[in-house]
């Protein structure tokens, strides 16, 4: 499993890539593997206000439906429309083609609450033990 160094992570298994005041969000390699083959992704509408820790969408796999939780507070500026036709992108390429939404960050201090790659890997280890 891969957990890129430049990304930030949450305990709900989302990642975020911060570029100035924009945050790209998806689910981690670990999350996609635990969910199994993803068959449907429910996306929010552009312009939706999401809050840190609150759900912004749903991912359905053959096993289960899971909410996706926002790592940060902000406004949805882009959604990955390709996922409607190709939910498998999240399995194949969780950090690239499988991105889910982009946010305009409202409160950049929240970034400090997120985990780095190393911390997240430790967290998964503690969770699976």
């Amino acid at each position, binding site marked *: 499993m891969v957990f890129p160094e430049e990304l930030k992570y949450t305990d709900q298994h989302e990642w975020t890539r911060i570029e100035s005041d924009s945050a790209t969000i998806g689910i981690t390699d670990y999350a996609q593997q635990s969910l199994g*083959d993803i068959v449907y992704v429910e996306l929010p509408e552009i312009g939706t206000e999401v809050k840190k820790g609150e759900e912004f969408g749903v991912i359905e796999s053959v096993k289960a439906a899971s909410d996706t939780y926002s790592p940060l507070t902000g406004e949805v500026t882009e959604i990955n429309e390709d996922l409607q036709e190709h939910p498998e992108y999240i399995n194949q390429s969780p950090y690239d083609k499988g991105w889910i939404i982009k946010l305009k960050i409202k409160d950049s201090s929240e970034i400090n609450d997120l985990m780095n790659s190393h911390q997240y890997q430790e967290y998964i280890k503690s969770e699976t033990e």
Partner: protein
Amino acid sequence: MNANSRQVLWKKEPYIFEQGSSGREGISLPEEDEDFSTQNNPPLPSHLLREPINDFPEVSEVEVVRHFTRLSQWNYGVDTGLYPLGSCTMKYNPKLNEEVAKLSGFSFAHPHQPEPLSQGALHLIYELESFLSEITGMDRVTLQPAAGAHGEFAGMLMIKAYFADKKDARIKVLIPDTAHGTNPASVSMCGFKAVPVKSNKDGIVDKDTVASLMDEDVAAIMLTNPNTLGIFELNITDIADIVHKKGGFVYCDGANLNALMGIVKLGDLGIDIAHINLHKTFSTPHGGGGPGSGPVAIKNILSDYLPVPIIEKREKRYFFNYDQPKSIGKVKSFYGNFLVCVKAYAYILTMGNSGLREASKTAVINANYIRTKLKNYYHIPHDVICMHEYVFTDKNQHEYNVNTLDIAKRLIDYGFHPPTIYFPLVVKQALMVEPTETESKETLDNFINAMICIADEAKNNPDLLKNAPLNAKITRVDEVTAARNPILKWKRD
């Protein structure tokens, strides 16, 4: 033990649309009689005549009977064998209940029949409500909701109506992570926000966790007891105190009441409102077998908000009382799924007080028997004495690259319905077994032996599991393609 179940006589069966031939009929009607058709009976007005339906099957009676009989032979039900589907309580449904529900006084009762002609049906509803009040230790019961989730919804509407009435705008409902998935859905439908409560390492809710989340915005805590891990919520009375002190209600999802009948009364635990699943606990058919029924039991504090009509009794006569100004109104057409209630009523009367208690005890012992016998073979995340069901995982099989789905599919080859898998979500790769009180020790031993054989196969012949089921009519299905590109309608080539 061998994996030697063999399903089916007919490997393939054409769709009914592909059978028969043009002009073939199931029933021969008499030739049209001139006198009959024209003189005394003018032709039907055109708006009552339907257009011909293209491609409608044209088949004989025996073709229809054979078609559906063959399909039924591919089915697996609780009348075929063990059906240990955790969280679903697939117990045997005694045929006597069906006989009682078929009595013409019940089966031909019309919902618009006037009260004086419906006294028997009303007596049954009234008495079943009182039985369920007694079993749950609550004050009142409504039989209206059509299933468990509908009961949750009706119950939450009553809580909502209570706070609206008190001009207390509470917005949150606490829901443990071991809840049924329908709980947060019902809460959201009523406009509340579901706040998750983490269970502790023993699989139950800590009172301190509840205390830290409880405030005057919380309308209720909604918990399942025993919870979906099959574990009794030991802190329930303390939790109820904490919630009550801040003015909230304690809602219990009573779907797992099968572990408690005649032993624990929900009302004694500080629970204010609960729904019950007649189709689980009280042996009425469910799944494909018939509609459900999800009565809601309440303490008197909520009685003003019960759905109407309420069935009441005055001088030995029963009547519908619609005069409940604060009622949440109707939640179902007429009076609920009445014939399901008839079956549950028959079940309670045949079992009696001691029989119901015995059923719960046996359900708990059966689950613990399987758990104890299999614990050396399959990983158990919460290794405690369970109630009527327990959860294990595929962790011991990971090193052979065998997972939960493979184990479940392989059970089909041994002639058993697989247990619930990937639920509850709080356990990764869960398999959830609920044998119910129905099963004999011989059946449980057969299941245990099959599970031990599968653990052995996982180690020595994992490919066998990867491709299972091998003996079923349909072997491993491609669930991913089916979910991504579902074909929902048959089309003629």
